[in-house]
């Protein structure tokens, strides 16, 4: 022990000195904080001191002094955090314990905060990753289940349309009407689920397009007037005449929002009236904000239920005759938020409900655009029927398309069950059009189209019109088809008229070329 250490020890109560023999027997100790007895073994005092045996065994005791900082020492009465020094002399070892408990506890707090914040951010990162994976799984699950449901639904809707054209008794007609109505309901439910999933995953993008606002409102006026007539209630629509006829905004989403609220108003109003008014909140340069007010005299909503109105799967009515999934208003709220709008609701049970929706729009100061009408196409004159190749692996959809096309009397139909078979067919026979399911096996619809467009010198093959179709109907599906070389896209479930229109259009366009 140095002179300096010795002096330090005498004046500092935070130090304890223990002298031991090489076998660990305590020869002397001041017991400043640990009350260890003379002639007992230091190895029994605390397992830390066992290190001395190892140092001796490994000849590490050659070193004159060894320092061990920040050692937690405790016995049944005292707990300290000490720096420990071993000074190895000829006949004995001096152990000095420097008590730095307070200093180390302060340092401990700092380290605790620092490490905790790092670990917490890591935990959040992990949680976030987990949630993202879960979200991705949910979205892909919804997309897949949607595809699986849409395929049989296409068949149901298609066959009902075929069935409706046959001779039916009154009862059969009614049953067919119910099947169609329920199938359409199921179809809109799938759309709701997909929309909600897209909104929640941030995949729904706002589209800014110029559209006729007047037409949109006229559409509501027309279709809901019929419903009002059937229900024998009054439906009034008023629109501020200073609102521009053409606005710039996401027409589809605006339609969806208003349609949802109007549908609800009609669903829950059995007598009285529904008023739909659109007023202008403000107008600045090329921006305007409109207020859509939908007021009904329906059953109303209990005050305590209003805060939960926009939650998913929320339904307060117990009337099972009123159909609904509880997704509609959740979608509305999400869409309004997405469009940077506001939605407010006031309601009183038995008196009615009022929804106020504020939505921002832009407008251009330009002349009104001519109304775009759907161009009419007719099949070119031909002695022979037109030959269509349907590439589809689902037997029921094959049969449905065949039935629709053959019933027109204008088409011959061949069926290929996968992309490879389609290639074999087109090499053997000339087709006027190919209806290509995008997800067929072996060679999918995209690949098959690529091969048809690029591998044949015969223009009859390489330029044959191709219409893609799929149950995975989303905004990019058509773009993807066009980029793959197809001429058009039709989503399942398709309407008979739409299918015939698209086929006719492509054949007519090809003939005109």
């Amino acid at each position: 022990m140095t002179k300096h250490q010795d002096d330090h020890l005498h004046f500092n109560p935070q130090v304890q000195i223990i002298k031991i023999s090489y076998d660990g027997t305590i020869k002397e100790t001041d017991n400043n904080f640990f009350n260890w007895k003379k002639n007992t073994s230091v190895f029994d005092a605390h397992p830390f001191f066992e290190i001395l045996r190892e140092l001796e065994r490994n000849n590490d005791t050659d070193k004159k002094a060894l320092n061990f900082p920040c050692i937690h020492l405790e016995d049944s009465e005292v707990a300290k955090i000490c720096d420990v020094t071993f000074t190895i002399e000829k006949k004995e070892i001096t152990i000095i314990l420097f008590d730095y408990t307070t200093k180390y506890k302060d340092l401990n707090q700092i380290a605790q905060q620092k490490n905790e914040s790092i670990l917490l951010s890591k935990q959040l990162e992990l949680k976030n990753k987990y949630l993202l994976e879960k979200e991705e799984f949910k979205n892909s699950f919804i997309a897949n289940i949607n595809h699986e449901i849409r395929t049989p639904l296409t068949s149901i809707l298609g066959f009902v349309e075929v069935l409706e054209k046959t001779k039916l008794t009154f009862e059969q007609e009614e049953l067919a009407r119910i099947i169609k109505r329920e199938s359409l309901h199921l179809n809109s439910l799938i759309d709701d689920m997909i929309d909600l999933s897209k909104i929640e995953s941030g995949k729904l993008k706002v589209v800014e397009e110029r559209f006729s606002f007047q037409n949109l409102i006229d559409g509501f006026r027309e279709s809901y007037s019929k419903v009002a007539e059937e229900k024998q209630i009054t439906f009034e629509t008023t629109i501020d005449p200073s609102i521009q006829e053409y606005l710039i905004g996401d027409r589809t989403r605006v339609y969806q929002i208003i349609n949802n609220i109007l549908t609800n108003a009609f669903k829950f109003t059995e007598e009285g009236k529904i008023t739909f008014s659109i007023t202008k909140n403000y107008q600045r340069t090329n921006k305007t904000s409109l207020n859509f007010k939908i007021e009904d005299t329906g059953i109303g909503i209990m005050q305590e239920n209003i805060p939960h109105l926009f939650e998913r799967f929320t339904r307060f009515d117990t009337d099972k005759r009123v159909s609904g999934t509880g997704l509609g208003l959740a979608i509305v709220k999400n869409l309004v938020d997405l469009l940077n709008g506001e939605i407010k609701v006031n309601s009183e049970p038995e008196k009615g409900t009022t929804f106020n929706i504020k939505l921002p729009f832009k407008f251009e100061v330009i002349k009104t655009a001519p109304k775009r009408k759907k161009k009419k196409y007719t099949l070119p004159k031909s002695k022979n029927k037109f030959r269509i190749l349907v590439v589809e692996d689902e037997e029921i959809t094959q049969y449905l398309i065949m039935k629709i096309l053959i019933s027109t009397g204008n088409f011959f139909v061949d069926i290929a069950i996968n992309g490879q078979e389609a290639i074999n067919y087109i090499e053997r026979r000339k087709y006027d059009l190919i209806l290509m399911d995008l997800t067929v096996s072996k060679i999918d619809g995209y690949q098959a189209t690529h091969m048809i467009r690029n591998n044949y010198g015969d223009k009859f093959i390489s330029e044959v019109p191709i219409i893609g179709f799929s149950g995975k109907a989303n905004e990019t599906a058509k773009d993807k088809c066009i980029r793959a070389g197809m001429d058009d896209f039709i989503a399942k479930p398709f309407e008979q008229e739409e299918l015939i229109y698209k086929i006719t259009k492509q054949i007519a366009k090809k003939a005109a070329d």
Partner: protein
Amino acid sequence: MKLSKKVVLIGHFGVGKTSLFRRFMDNEFSEEYKVTLGVQIKKKVIELPDGRELSMIIWDTEGHSNSIEDTRKSYLLGSHAFIYVFDVTREETYATLHKDLEYLKKNHAKVPAKILGNKLDLVNEKEIAQHLTSQEIHFDCLTSAKTNKNVQNFFSELAKEITK
């Protein structure tokens, strides 16, 4: 002569060294994270398969932020085994594994180092094992101090190995 072996738990902070220490020593676990400053040492006497008794003196050291070189050198003196603990959910806790093992080999050539991946309860065992193998992280055992999975078995095997 009574058998006594010093085993040192080393690794990054927050990987669960103290949890493993407490689980092995007292069969306790706490969700609360508490920083270890310096080193805490405890002894546990275990019976070996041949009937001998071994005093395992476990040094639970303060976790480092970068590499093993931050660990105080005196803590590693006189060791019979090192347990290098990493957190299977945090890549940064095994990113320096190869370098750290080289350091141990260079300075403590005769002391075996066991690699242990902890917090198995937070991941899928098969998936993480595959992931670690693909990253060339060779581990001796995957454990969960929380659920006690593989903890006692790991220490028993280690005891056998260091007393051979």
